[in-house]
């Protein structure tokens, strides 16, 4: 009787999975073949959810038990080394929340918005398929391997498992990615806030609120994060709402209206101050606020999409798959896969997965839920961002995201250019939209954040039936994006400063002391100067900055992913799991192909919109032909220098990819030929005493 019931359950389970597969195939088929009539966004969400469910149930299980051999009878470092500080056995779902909050930044929101210039299909397929076969696997295996090594960092694992050189490359890659990452996210904030007194006021309110919370948490009620965050959220929302009155006031609006260059300088000064101030005063309380608002808004966006089930107005493919897109230059291959890094596969995650999280895992099986599951969630955030882009009319989407250098400076010229591409829009429509969301203009607002905010505002106001509050929702969305972008900026600058202090400590001992104040100031200034330089170059770029900086960010991020996957493949070979190396080798091969192709095109393409050197040549020609006044000539000389610098940085990243790959391949060959003994650096196994 019991056996029969068990069989019945098995059959029911199998039928359920067959149904999920069939529904997913139907949804994927619909979104891949739909032409003409707008398809409902629910199909996009359904396809993604079905793929995630199947991938988690089957593929992650295969990786967990066949490839890695997760073993719950083996004690994790959190159990063996429990010290109540770094190593603490932590509840699976609490750790899931912490890990997700750590990996989910602005990347999965901004990348898909930018990649929507190719249409919704290429980006969505990459987010979903790249996510489950690449990003989730990278995060999961890195987390697992780090956990088996007492929570070693990526650099330490590279040193121990690949070679000393691999370790140094990882360290350099982390510093480089930090600089480019901060510059590019800061550029997104600048473009979202330029000439927007309401937006600037909202963000300006956050800083004193955060400091107030910092003092509260430090002096009055240490560690009472919840009550402080609720209090802070109320104040921040008051700032969002009262921003309208500031923007409408002839007296106050000029105090909060800035050009992009002025905003860039404000952010640079802010980044420096935040790095030299104690973490408890500004960084930590702002991070708490950002985390709660981020998680809440992402959940609200998911619910909003389901309730509003909006039609997708952007086509599956646009004419810009041929590489002539106004937002960034380059064909759908490789640039769709560089533009969407976070959301599909992000090398930066390997730093998070090899840090705090592996020291807190209670049972080995939790690594699957946390490593694979959290990345799947982030991938889903990317899908939601894509939906937010697709609810905009294509003409509106391109009007917001195209730089003046590509469509013209005046609203009429920009609208006429975009309409001539087959995506009709008028300057009046854009003016009405800008008025509805409380902005002066929405033309040339590159960077992705404003169009995401418009999309989110439409979804929220439609869901809640409060069309009149579109301006509040828009500025709430801008605040939500800026808040955690600033957290990345703060935290990244601080970590960069720590790394630089450690490096300089090898040269002059006092720098090695993390509390030595002259060292803190100098290293903070160096890190801020590095990303500040790229930021200023980006805001002055006539092509909008995103065109040059975002691909650099994508390439540097994928460099880090290459390192992580090389380490993972090396460890799999050492573990004698050679027949399963395709699990990491597949995504690695794809990433190397994409990164190398994109790097080659960004440096050597003869198209001046795409190739850095071709652009520098065009500008040199202008300079030689007489560029007009001295100030203009100096500006052109600076653009030429920036182009050459960007080309050099890209070449360095590409060289590092080749070097890491060659070094890893050499090790694999030595192991395969038996010329080197496979020595794993895993901690010895101990029997777990904790209940499952």
């Amino acid at each position, binding site marked *: 009787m019991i056996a029969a019931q068990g069989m019945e359950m098995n059959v029911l389970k199998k039928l359920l999975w067959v149904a999920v597969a069939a529904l997913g195939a139907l949804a994927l088929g619909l979104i891949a073949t739909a032409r003409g009539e707008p398809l409902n966004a629910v199909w996009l969400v359904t396809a993604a959810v079905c793929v995630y469910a199947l991938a988690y149930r089957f593929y992650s299980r295969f990786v967990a038990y066949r490839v890695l051999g997760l073993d719950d009878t083996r004690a994790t470092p959190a159990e063996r080394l429990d010290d109540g500080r770094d190593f603490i056995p932590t509840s699976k779902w609490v750790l899931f929340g912490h890990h997700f909050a750590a990996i989910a930044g602005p990347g999965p929101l901004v990348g898909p918005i930018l990649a929507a210039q190719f249409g919704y299909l290429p980006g969505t397929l990459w987010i979903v398929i790249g996510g489950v076969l690449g990003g989730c696997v990278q995060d999961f295996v890195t987390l697992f391997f780090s956990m088996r090594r007492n929570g070693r*960092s990526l650099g330490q694992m590279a040193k121990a498992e690949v070679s000393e050189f691999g370790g140094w490359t990882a360290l350099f890659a982390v510093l480089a990615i930090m600089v480019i990452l901060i510059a590019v996210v800061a550029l997104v904030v600048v473009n979202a806030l330029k000439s927007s007194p309401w937006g600037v006021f909202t963000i300006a309110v956050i800083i004193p609120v955060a400091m107030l919370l910092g003092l509260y948490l430090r002096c009055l009620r240490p560690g009472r994060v919840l009550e402080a965050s609720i209090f802070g959220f109320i104040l921040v929302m008051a700032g969002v709402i009262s921003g309208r009155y500031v923007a409408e006031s002839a007296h106050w609006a000029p105090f909060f209206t800035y050009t992009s260059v002025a905003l860039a300088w404000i952010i640079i000064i802010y980044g420096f101050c935040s790095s030299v101030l104690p973490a408890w005063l500004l960084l930590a309380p702002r991070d708490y606020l950002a985390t709660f608002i981020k998680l809440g808004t992402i959940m609200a966006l998911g619910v909003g999409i389901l309730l509003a089930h909006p039609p997708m107005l952007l086509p599956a493919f646009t004419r810009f798959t041929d590489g002539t897109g106004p937002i960034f230059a380059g064909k759908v291959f490789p640039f769709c896969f560089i533009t969407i890094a976070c959301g599909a596969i992000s090398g930066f995650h390997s730093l998070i997965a090899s840090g705090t999280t592996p020291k807190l895992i209670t049972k080995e099986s939790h690594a699957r839920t946390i490593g694979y599951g959290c990345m799947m969630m982030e991938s889903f955030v990317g899908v939601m961002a894509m939906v937010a882009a697709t609810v905009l009319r294509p003409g509106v989407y391109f009007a917001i995201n195209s730089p003046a250098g590509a469509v013209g400076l005046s609203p009429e010229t920009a609208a006429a250019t975009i309409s001539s591409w087959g995506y009709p829009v008028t300057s009046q429509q854009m003016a009405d939209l800008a008025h509805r969301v409380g902005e002066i203009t929405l033309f040339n607002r590159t960077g992705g954040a404003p169009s995401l905010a418009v999309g989110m505002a439409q979804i929220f106001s439609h869901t809640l039936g409060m069309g009149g509050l579109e301006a509040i929702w828009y500025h709430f969305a801008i605040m939500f994006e800026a808040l955690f972008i600033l957290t990345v900026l703060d*935290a990244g600058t601080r970590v960069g400063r720590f790394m630089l202090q450690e490096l300089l400590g090898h040269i002059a001992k006092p720098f090695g002391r993390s509390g030595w104040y002259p060292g803190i100031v100098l290293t903070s200034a160096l890190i801020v100067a590095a990303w500040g330089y790229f930021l200023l170059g980006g805001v002055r770029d006539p092509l909008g900055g995103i065109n040059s900086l975002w691909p650099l960010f994508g390439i540097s991020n994928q460099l880090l992913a290459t390192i992580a996957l090389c380490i993972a493949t090396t460890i799999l070979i050492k573990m004698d799991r050679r027949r399963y190396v395709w699990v990491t080798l597949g995504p690695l091969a794809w990433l190397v192909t994409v990164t190398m192709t994109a790097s080659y095109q960004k440096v050597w393409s003869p198209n001046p919109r795409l190739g850095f050197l071709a652009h520098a040549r065009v500008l040199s020609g202008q300079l030689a032909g007489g560029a007009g006044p001295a100030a203009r000539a100096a500006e052109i000389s600076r653009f030429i220098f920036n182009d050459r610098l960007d080309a050099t940085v890209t070449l360095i990243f590409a060289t590092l990819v080749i070097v890491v790959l060659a070094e890893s391949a050499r090790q694999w060959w030595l192991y395969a030929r038996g010329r080197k003994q496979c020595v794993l650096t895993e901690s010895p196994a101990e029997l777990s005493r904790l209940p499952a």
Partner: protein
Amino acid sequence: MRLRTLFRRLWHFIREAAGENAYLQHRERALAHGESPLPPAAFYLSGLERKYSRPNRCC
């Protein structure tokens, strides 16, 4: 009754996720090991120092 239990568990989870129970756990652990626990403010600051000295927020 079930609803109350559900809310209690949810509240406990949120407090745990926000790290509000961390000091209590540190105190219990220290006392159990015969060590003197850190004062709440010092414990809070040491946690922040560990958290923000390595990559902990991604792109």
